[in-house]
């Protein structure tokens, strides 16, 4: 049982890394769509978030669409506050790590600038950052998955020895 639990933990870690990569790709797709909405459709942020979020049926897509809905409701709350609250919800639901969330936070700080060039520049910068992380993670993923599984097995073996 201890061995199985250890292997399970290792597999969960590997799965988490895979999900993180997948979610980073979702975010990248969303940002490319958002860029198009702002640049060519001249959509306002709530509409752009809703349109892009609904086009990407995934956890990150739902998150962006929800953010759009909240902005549309005009609750009387500043953009930054809504963005921050939505980020906290995203962090709970996804495999994204603290650094990924911090990147999104920085993007949010720049998204409420009044000119289009700054918005588009901020999105481009964020896309580059995701791409770097994605490439880094893709390169590391096979190794990390193997390491996770191996560590799971080894730690459970270690525990068994301790118990004996």
């Amino acid at each position, binding site marked *: 049982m201890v061995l199985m639990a250890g292997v399970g933990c290792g597999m969960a870690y590997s799965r988490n890394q895979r999900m993180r990569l997948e979610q980073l790709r979702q975010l990248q797709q969303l940002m490319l769509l958002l860029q198009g909405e702002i640049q060519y459709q001249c959509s306002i942020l*709530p509409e752009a978030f809703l349109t892009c979020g609904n086009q990407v049926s995934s956890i990150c897509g739902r998150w962006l669409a929800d953010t759009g809905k909240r902005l549309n409701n005009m609750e009387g709350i500043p953009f930054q506050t809504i963005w921050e609250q939505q980020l906290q919800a995203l962090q709970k639901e996804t495999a994204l790590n603290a650094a990924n969330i911090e990147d999104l936070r920085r993007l949010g700080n720049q998204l409420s600038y009044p000119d289009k060039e700054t918005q588009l520049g901020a999105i481009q910068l964020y896309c580059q950052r995701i791409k770097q992380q994605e490439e880094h993670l893709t390169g590391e993923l096979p190794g990390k998955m193997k390491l996770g599984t191996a560590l799971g097995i080894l730690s459970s073996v270690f525990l068994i020895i301790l118990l004996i």
Partner: protein
Amino acid sequence: MDKKQELWKVFSLKLRQILMNMNIDFERLQEIRLRVWEPLLVIYDNREFFVGETGRLSTCMNDIYRVTPEDIRSTLDFISRYSLYAYEDEIRQGFITIQGGHRVGIAGKVVMDPQGIKTIRHIAFLNIRLSHQVKGCGSELLPIVRDDTGIRHTLIISPPRCGKTTLLRDLIRLLSDGTQDWQGVTVGVVDERSEIGACYQGIPQNDLGKRTDILDCCPKAYGMLMLIRSMSPVVVAVDEIGSREDIEAIEYVINAGCSILATVHGNSIEDIRNKPVLRRLVEERIFERYVVLNNKGGIGHIERIFDAQGNGL
């Protein structure tokens, strides 16, 4: 959501509370003025009032609420739905039209580039001019605009805040719907500033009649030509003409056999004659009816009506 609640939502939370507490008839509210560190003002029933923190209107400075920079910043966020970048062109013209057709005038530090005004930064003054649809206000004018010979090319001349857009809107509705005695006609509206139809996501929030097509947010000169080519209107309606391109497009509309309904800023036909671009309209007798408005007898009061020669009717 009613128009009133919809409008209050564009204000900062503090201003929302104050404005919601005002005990007024919303239909008679004309303007809300915000200036940084200055009292919150409203124009109600053609009179100016200070608004207190409790929402009480007064004419003295005893009980006033001073607008803060935060109020202006938040209000701008909500007016632009957190997306001022999407209103770059409107900001260059000095106003944004919001849901409901209300016009928000903005002032602050103007940034210039070689092409002209680039944007307005440090926005510190807002003037929210409310749009109200007054159904039936054009009935009096209808027999002048439409007679046995057809629909006359009509120009409504009026200073700001005298109800020219309101009158134009109702004339469009009346011509489009028709009556039991005559069938309405197809009306094409070029609504450059979204004030006539107050379209939200393409759907007009004001009633412009059942035979009306609207080109929303389209420059007038382009829009008039587009409508002629694509929607076969009998009447083309536009608000606030003034540029050389507008005049050329109006001539195109008339030559295409359509009638034109338009408005222009001014106090009299003389005013129009004195404007270099518009002078030709009067001299060449392009319009068959001139309707001059003032607000002496209330908003939309018709001061005089003239024919093409400038004779009073």
